């Protein structure tokens, strides 16, 4: 299958976010508060990396060199991932808040993707069947962590909320209609806001400077590629 270049760019945005989220999860596995959580984080990280591979394949075809070029050789400025996906923290409440926000937004986006072409809908169904486990995990840990230490979760929410801003930025590329993307973004945002408000949290303005660790991820991921060109 070939998709229009503009649709391809939007699939690459989704893939980049899954790549960043997956890289961080597999890297911080070991820092979770218990063994089962570390197993869960490394499993979810692998799932996300698999989703990135599937999305890159849908965007540019399954040629491995082409996908490697996208990941290892693309100028950092061409990555359009929402900053939230890149947040690189080993702190438990930061991880919990990041993924509570990211996975719930991702579920909305997969719902949008399910209404797209049959091929993208099939891919969305497979990803969603795996993401359901992630959403359940992070939602229940968000609730529990919020009960244990409200102040630390509030601090993490204040730090990370501005980073979530780009999750539904799809432009006019044609993967989703601008209206449907905006509607999904509004649904997500109002649901999250009312849930957080009911738990006694307050959200900062999205105009605050977002936390963005994408350069750190790219530096880390590309270290072998850059140090041993052609031999990695």
């Amino acid at each position, binding site marked *: 299958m070939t998709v229009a270049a503009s649709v391809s760019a939007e699939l690459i945005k989704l893939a980049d976010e899954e790549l960043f989220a*997956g890289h961080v999860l597999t890297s911080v596995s070991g820092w979770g508060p218990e063994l089962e959580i570390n197993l*869960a984080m490394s499993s979810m*990280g*692998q*799932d996300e990396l698999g989703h990135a591979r599937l999305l890159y394949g849908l965007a540019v075809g399954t040629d491995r060199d082409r996908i490697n070029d996208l990941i290892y050789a693309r100028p950092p400025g061409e990555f359009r991932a929402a900053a939230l996906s890149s947040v690189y923290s080993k702190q438990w409440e930061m991880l919990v808040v990041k993924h509570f926000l990211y996975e719930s937004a991702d579920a909305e986006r997969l719902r949008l993707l399910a209404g797209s072409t049959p091929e993208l809908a*099939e*891919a969305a169904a497979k990803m969603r069947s795996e993401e359901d486990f992630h959403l359940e995990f992070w939602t229940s840990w968000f609730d529990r962590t919020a009960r244990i230490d409200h102040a630390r979760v509030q601090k993490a929410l204040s730090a990370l909320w501005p980073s979530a801003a780009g999750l539904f930025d799809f432009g006019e590329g044609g993967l989703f209609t601008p209206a449907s993307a905006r509607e999904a973004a509004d649904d997500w945002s109002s649901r999250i806001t009312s849930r957080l408000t009911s738990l006694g949290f307050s959200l900062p303005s999205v105009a605050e400077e977002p936390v963005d660790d994408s350069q750190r991820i790219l530096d880390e991921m590309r270290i072998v590629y850059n140090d041993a060109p052609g031999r990695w």
Partner: protein
Amino acid sequence: MARRGELVEQDVRSCLAAVEDPELPVSIVDLGMVKRVAVEASDGGWDVGVDLVPTFLGCPAQIFIEAAVLKAMRAVDGVVDVRVQWLPAAQWSLEHISPSGRTALKEIGVAVPDGKGGLECPNCESTRIVIDSNFGATLCRRLGHCEECGDPVEIMKSGVDATRLTLPLSAR
């Protein structure tokens, strides 16, 4: 003279069945990962095409399974060319595991939900299984234990596994 197609196909199928998942000592055919096998005549022999379905998209065993399938198919007498492709978006579920696959999994202590909400302890056959985590040692497994005999139980999972919400998840 080239071998007869039926003989080649027989060998292709038995050699495929001998390829195991590197993360589980069980045949990839029994695990339901082989979606299609095609044996077609070509110049001087036979071409083999194998379509594979990953259990989970991020399963790191895929690259090893692909290499093992290529090697096994190339070793079949009469085969000229082999093409292996993954169908990443195709759905895989526990229903794709064959009865012999279920038996093989049980023998190594991995329980497979029966699709009707039932799950048996591979050790004592009690149905009093509790899930401790939806994640486990590999992407396709999660952790639980048996309330009857106390053994830890690994449970096969798939994204479309309907039993996951009906089994008790131990309190966090």
